[in-house]
């Protein structure tokens, strides 16, 4: 059983404002364990540090403190050890309009990871690219392989980004708000695709999101973050159905609930104001 363990992760950013220098603690002591075949969701509002956690796990940022362990061993940060880590852990970015190079065709985006990680060589590459495209439901693959990012819709682009992350044969996938930039009507399709691939590959998925409903539906464990701190952590249903922390309750209250559709805005705001008394800033949804 392969595991990706995060222990007491801390990230400080240096903030320069004129002559003053200060540090901003974006992530303060986050710990969780990601197992193959399971999904951990990290939820929180914008600026809660959840994306920084994702970037640290993808080794785009170096943690200030704390450890990341792959199968119990501290991960390598340079050279071959880093390449080996990238072979195991891949990432899907939030914005599919930004994460694909506008200059290159789809084939380039998928060919590179295949070649870098030695998954396919020479004549095998093209069939491998086509197989990847078929796995993310982009058929006929010949058509999509020749396209450039701007010729595709947001959902199609995110499928390309997912295919790219799958290309090295990774066992862990970090999905940083994979559907937040997509049209609501296609979000479920992309999420179901991720869930299916997870089952097929027995992937461990770290699902970063601000959407509690999909977090509960797609993940086994939920980590709730607020301003860098983990305020609540546990099995999904427990966190959603029996929230212990005030912030989690606030988040739940702010989420739209179809069954309570038609409540007056004032009613909701009063409810949220009660939560806000606990000291959390609340942005009431206006629907």
């Amino acid at each position, binding site marked *: 059983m392969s595991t990706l363990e995060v222990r007491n992760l801390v990230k400080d950013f240096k903030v320069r404002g004129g002559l003053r220098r200060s540090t901003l603690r974006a992530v303060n002591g986050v710990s969780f364990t990601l197992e193959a075949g399971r999904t951990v969701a990290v939820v929180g509002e914008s600026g809660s540090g959840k994306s920084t956690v994702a*970037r640290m796990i*993808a*080794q*785009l940022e170096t943690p200030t403190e704390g450890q990341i362990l792959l199968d119990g061993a501290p991960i390598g940060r340079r050279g071959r050890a*880093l*390449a080996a880590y*990238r*072979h195991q852990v*891949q*990432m899907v*970015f*939030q*914005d599919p309009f*930004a*994460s*694909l*190079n*506008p*200059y*290159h065709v789809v084939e380039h985006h998928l060919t*590179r*990871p295949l070649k*870098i*990680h030695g998954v396919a060589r020479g004549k095998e590459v093209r069939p491998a690219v086509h197989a990847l495209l078929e796995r993310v439901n982009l058929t006929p693959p010949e058509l999509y392989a020749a396209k450039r990012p701007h010729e595709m819709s947001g959902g199609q682009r995110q499928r390309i*980004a997912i295919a*790219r*992350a799958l*290309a*090295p044969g990774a066992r862990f996938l970090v999905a940083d708000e994979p559907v937040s930039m997509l049209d609501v009507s296609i979000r479920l399709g992309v999420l179901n695709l991720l869930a299916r691939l997870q089952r097929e590959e027995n992937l461990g998925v770290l699902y970063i999101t601000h959407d509690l409903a999909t977090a509960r539906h797609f993940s086994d464990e939920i980590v709730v973050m607020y301003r860098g701190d983990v305020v609540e952590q546990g099995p999904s249903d427990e966190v959603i159905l029996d929230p212990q922390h005030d912030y989690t309750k606030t988040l739940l209250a702010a989420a739209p609930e179809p069954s309570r559709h038609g409540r007056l805005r004032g009613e909701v705001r009063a409810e949220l104001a009660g939560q806000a008394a606990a000291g959390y800033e609340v942005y009431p949804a206006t629907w």
Partner: protein
Amino acid sequence: MTDRPRLTLRLAGHGKLVVGLAIVAAIALFAIVGPMLTQNPRSSDNPALLPPQPGHWLGTTSLGYDVLAQLAEGARGSLLVGVVAGSLAIVLSLVFGVVAGYTRGWADEGLSLITNVMLVIPGLPLMIVVASYLQVRSLWVVALILGATAWPGSAIVLRFQARSLRNRDYVSAARVAGERTPRILLVEILPNLLPLLTAQFLFAVVLAILGEAGLSYLGLGPNGSITWGTMLNEAQGGSALTRGAWWWFIPPGLLIAVLGCALSLVNFSIDEVINPRLRQAPAAARSVRKARKAGLDITAYDGGDGPAAVPAVGVSAPLGDEPREKVQA
């Protein structure tokens, strides 16, 4: 019939590009073919200071050189200097700009420091000092000097652009995929800099051609070679101006100006490709002007008065405009 308006439309959109490229192509063709069709530019067998006439279409110099032949040979020299110096400048600005922008820490600090120092060193005096140090200056040496002093401006621009690109998600994605830094620079970042690089290259070429002309005019140009700059220098030395030999100094001067103008036109159209808003700018300004003039026009049409109201608008619009602008200010 259907094709003609479409073609003009297409040309209307890229008029600057078409005109610029046509002039550049014509001058390049002149540089390539011209020397084969004209007489030896170094033969002084001709009568001195002949005005333009059949046989010597641009006349001769005080030493009996054929001006047209010199102009064609000079086109070769000037273009060679321009292209070599422009290429060198762009390579240097790539190294100092893109590498500095992509890396962090000491490499960035060091490269930026050199760039900033080079930026504040005044270019032309430096060129003069270096050029006067060297007793033997070939065309290539002059091109190297010009190229080595022309890069810091574009390096600064490239550095900021690369800094912005390095934080793009697709660069992060390439890093997560396991791409190595040189490949990220060359394959992921560089293609997205191409329009900017092209513009900077053309600008560097113009600068180098002008710089070469300046150096040569001061007598610090390449010795033994003919360029438009050395022609101007000789025209000055032969007091072409006082003798009224306009055919000696106007053609090289004019060609320098026309070539610079043409390359700038190409540059402008590249700018418009990078930033499509520029293309709409003239049209937008025009519509704003129209709207201002039509300030009362709109109400007139609302009232259904039609063309009858138009003359009155022309008179009253300037009066009506002023107070409105004051309110806005």
